[in-house]
């Protein structure tokens, strides 16, 4: 209702994007593109964290050791079952207080503290989801594959490296694409700890210019374009890694 009545009187002004912003760094569009840069850098770094930790935990879940399975299971449940926003606040506000005083002060004085915190929080949160995908991919392989690798004399590590993981990643590439997109979208929560990523920049533009529709329409279009590029890229990767005859074989 409010939006409707406001809509009637709303004064559209797309030219606002090319007007100088009060931060003195250029136009409002430059401000949004600066936000986009933070979104991309944060998402890429968090995605690397998610892939590295997610793969390690995913592998642990498929080992025969009960301890390894338990540790990996606990990790997944911990990071998957606490809301991302809460995790972000825990890393930003609580963890520095729990550390020795000097470390806490050092962390709070970091120049890009919000960025590092966002990378760690989003990266670890997403790693629990990646771990679930990776272990599902490994479990989807025929049991004989592990045996065949073992039988020619490969060590367990080599069996994972050369046989199980290359196929597992291929199998879960489509769901991993979704997780990558989720990582990009989840960077928007970092505005709550002061990271000027795309959503933060859009909100800031709206506060300065009062052109709320232009600000968030522009941000929406930029998110859509970014994720379309990622989707397109991942599809290309899927085609590149496709195993000849594999689908026909099983």
């Amino acid at each position, binding site marked *: 209702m409010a939006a409707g009545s406001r809509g009637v009187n709303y004064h559209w002004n797309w030219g606002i994007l090319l007007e100088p912003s009060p931060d003195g760094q250029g136009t409002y569009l430059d401000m949004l593109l600066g936000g986009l840069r933070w979104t991309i850098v944060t998402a890429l770094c968090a995605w690397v964290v998610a892939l590295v930790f997610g793969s390690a935990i995913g592998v642990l879940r498929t080992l025969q050791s009960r301890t390894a399975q338990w540790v990996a299971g606990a990790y997944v449940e911990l990071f998957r079952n606490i809301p991302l926003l809460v995790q972000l606040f825990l890393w930003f506000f609580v963890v520095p207080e729990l550390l020795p005083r000097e470390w806490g002060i050092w962390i709070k004085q970091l120049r890009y503290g919000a960025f590092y915190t966002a990378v760690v929080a989003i990266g670890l949160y997403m790693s629990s989801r990646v771990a679930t995908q990776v272990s599902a991919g490994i479990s989807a392989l*025929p049991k*004989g*594959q592990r*045996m*065949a*690798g*073992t*039988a*020619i*004399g*490969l*060590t367990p590590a*080599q069996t994972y490296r*050369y*046989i199980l993981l*290359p*196929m597992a990643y*291929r199998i879960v590439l489509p769901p991993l694409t979704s997780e990558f997109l989720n990582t990009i979208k989840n960077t928007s929560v970092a505005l709550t700890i002061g990271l000027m990523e795309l959503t933060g920049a859009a909100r800031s533009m709206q506060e300065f210019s009062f052109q709320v529709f232009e600000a968030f329409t522009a941000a929406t279009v930029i998110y859509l374009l970014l994720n379309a590029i990622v989707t397109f890229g991942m599809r290309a990767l899927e085609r590149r890694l496709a*195993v*000849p*005859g*594999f*689908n*026909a*074989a*099983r």
Partner: protein
Amino acid sequence: MSMISMRNVSKWYGPQFQVLKDCSVEVEKGEVIVVCGPSGSGKSTLIKTVNALETIQNGEIVVDGVTVNASKTNLPKLRARVGMVFQHFELFPHLSIIQNLCLGQEKVLGRGHDEAVAKAEALLKRVGLSAHAQKFPGQLSGGQQQRVAIARALVMDPVCMLFDEPTSALDPEMITEVLDVMVELAREGMTMMVVTHEMGFARKVAHRVVFMDQGEIVEDALKEDFFGTPRSERARNFLSKILSH
């Protein structure tokens, strides 16, 4: 000294279910042993204990002088010397045929790439698949895949070969091409332990037949004796069922 020596081997799944009951088998160098028996009799489990793909709780297994179930045994090193062929081939689908044959040579035996490729090509020629070196497993027929799997085991220069129902996942018209390769291998003097229901193969090249039922070795006899006059009731029953058609 036997190539493969299994003495009083027992294995349990959980506290109750005993899959192998006090099994003893000796396989001499150059001997071909066929292991048969009804499904669930433990024959696949038995040959998988030889290269420790299955662990055992009791008894002793010695392969070419190495005690398999000793804690200090370097299992990867031992397994590299024991070739194994599986029911479902288990080629590595993301690797080309030639890469399938080079992986173990390079990563386990430490051979250089050129040496590994030369060896792989020689073995592919031997199983009649030279033309398919650059293809992927999914592009080959079942029979061709199983021949590649045999070649993949042979490139490691094994001292003996284990076959776990190598033809039971194949379409009938492809069984012969795989058995031909195995017969040739047997005639060249390879030590082989073969789990199979192909009694034609057993008659042709086996030296001895081991008959298993419910985790026990019921009969361990020379081929002539086994097909002539099996001593046990259970073996007679089994034979009459699989030979009746």
